[in-house]
């Protein structure tokens, strides 16, 4: 069932009327939900950006789905990155401000996993956007016509969830 939903999301995103740039931007934003701990203040901001801008929302979902397992796998790396940043003396004034400022402190940026994963996502944001845009364009040009004729594709496209995702189409 999860796999089916994932396929629907992917097909919906890749075949929506959004431009490859909009889908890639959505996917790059969606990575944040998977790479960083979900219940974090910064994810509310990313959600707001994803909803208020004309990026592909199915793209956001697809990016999230792709990034979840990657996030779990890379936790040890995020932990190290976060620890390095949090123990860098030059950044101490910044973190002192963060942990002692109302609301900002709720971001939990003094946690190694939160900080490490957020910084990693920010670093990957532009490269992942470029990569996704290239891949979506290649998909539409080379793969889509062949897939559209397949029976599996027709089954997925016919399900109700497809219609729900159409609502979020850019």
């Amino acid at each position, binding site marked *: 069932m999860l796999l089916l939903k994932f396929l629907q999301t992917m097909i919906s995103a890749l075949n929506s009327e959004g431009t490859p740039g909009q889908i890639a931007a959505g996917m790059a934003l969606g990575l944040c939900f998977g790479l960083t701990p979900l219940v974090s203040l910064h994810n509310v901001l990313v959600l707001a950006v994803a909803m*208020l801008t*004309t990026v592909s929302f199915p793209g956001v979902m697809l990016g999230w789905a792709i990034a979840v397992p990657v996030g779990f796998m890379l936790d*040890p790396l995020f*932990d190290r990155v976060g620890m390095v940043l949090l123990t860098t003396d030059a950044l*101490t004034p910044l973190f002192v401000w963060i*942990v002692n400022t109302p609301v900002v*402190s709720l971001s939990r940026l003094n*946690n*190694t996993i939160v900080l490490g994963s957020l910084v990693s996502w920010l670093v990957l944001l532009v490269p992942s956007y470029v990569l996704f845009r290239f891949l979506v364009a290649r998909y539409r040009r080379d793969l889509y016509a062949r897939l559209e004729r397949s029976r599996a594709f027709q089954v997925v496209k016919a399900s109700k969830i497809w219609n729900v995702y159409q609502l979020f189409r850019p």
Partner: protein
Amino acid sequence: MKWIRWTALLPLAVTLVLIALAVYFYLDPAVRRGVEVTGTEAVGARVDLASAHVALGDGSVTLRGLAVTDPARPMTNLFEVEEIVFRAAVVPALERKVVIDTMAVRGVRFGTVRKTSGALPARAGVAGEGPGALRRAVDDWRSRVKVPPISLNTLTQSVNVDAISAESLATLRAARGAHAYADTARAKLIADLQALDPRGTIDSATALATRLEKASLRSLGLGGVRTAVADVRRTVTALNELDDRLRDFQAATRANAAGLTERLEAIPAARQADYAYARSLLRLPTFDIPSIGPQLFSPIFTEKVGELMYWARLLEQYVPPGLERQFRAGPSRVRASGTDVLFPKARVYPDFLTRLAELTLAIGGEGAAAGAYSARVEGLTTQPAVYGAPTRFELTRSGGRAGPTDVRVSGSMDHRRAPVQDALQASFSGITLPTVVLNGVGARLDFGTGVSELRVARRGDSLDGRWLWRATRVRWTRDTLTQARATSPAMRLVEDALWRAVSRIDSVEVEARFDGPISGPRLGIRTNIASAVGNALRDQMGDEVRRAEQQVRARVDALVDARVAEARTKADAVKADVEARIAAERARLEEQKVALEARLKELVRIPGIGSPVTSSPAPSSRR
């Protein structure tokens, strides 16, 4: 292309409201879980909370059914609290900080029984950190300081001195060390003597003396004689310098020999330690009164002092001094927890602070602690350097029909800067003291009601404390359950004598003193029971113990004497050998110097050569 999707404003608002509602409804379980997880992590045993309720309107938090497991006894709660109500400040809460202005606590009970074990499952953690590591360190200390109880059984059997192993004796190690040192010292001294190279200088002096032995003005000519005089003067100077170096070397050699002497002198002390060690292997009863106290009460006091050590060290871990970065385990979640890095800063809110808690505690039942109490805690915080004042607390008994007549507990905790300083004074009058089985004595001591006084002071890594129990109407019962009666009639006589000696004592005082490093303080126990026990043992068993001790000493001597004698002989031989070598070199040197100086006197008498040259100055004037 338009970038903003204005139509999404409403769905976004709805989403945010939904998130806020989820947070609101999840807040109570989140607080409950937070208290349980943080408490468990801090205490090192399970902390359970039945429910938590946060009233956002007035900022009050109510915790119900808090049960904190005693880490040392997982089926017992350290304490249980029916209800805690406190009001938390809102602005610090927006900084993820808990600042409590007032707190009310109701229904506190200590030492209640748990339905399920509160022990934590063993988990792989960072070695040397956390409550588990502290618990292991304390257990290790307990096993090291616990003194075995008095044992009479060994005297019923023949003394088995074969159990004393030669390899475990310090005397042998000291003797071997002295032997090896002598070898090393000899090799080094000979090498140093060779490096000094006295032979070269002496041999060239000998050659010069031989060459000039039959030389005259005729054979050498005036120029040759002048050259010969210059050569002789130069050689005598070289011999004098060599003599100085040999003298210095001889002094250094004697200093090295002092190291050897030190090692030899350490052997008798090692032998005394071996006598004590060998005696302890046989567990012979001692009549030495200061050592009887620990034998009687060390099990109970190592437990209690160990708990003090555990909590004092845990306190330091969770309330570290100073404004340095602090590292704590991150929140428990599906993803990895990571580490929370705290950045304390002066003059802001600390992470956790209870400014003032005035507690009224009612401990029900007829137990040792039953009664009504009032307590006051001031400035309880996890970041004292941020708060800027020490934590102070006091507890007094305010009433009750059962339980102690008077309770006074007060203390302070100053972790603002290193070294940390903690102090605790506790005094309980009319408290029911425990019943103690005195192993070895075959008696059970029921203290009844009495006085318990505790004073502990910690400064940095140093702990100093005193724990006193005093009871004036103790009850004694013969203990045949934990200690079976002796089988031989002689030992039964000893047991009876011990029983008569202790059972006459009405008033008992036990004082445990502990001081030294907090990781392993020394523990001394003094009690008035010790003199009664010591005297009874001496009367009944003095001769047997002395005989056994003689056998032990003879066995130790037999094992070590040969090696000690060998080490001494070796050391003496090395000293003599090196001294002889130096003396021989100096004698040869002196002989050549005298010959050359005599020849020089003859040469300078020749007209046109120069004034007579005085002999080389004395060593002290040469310097």
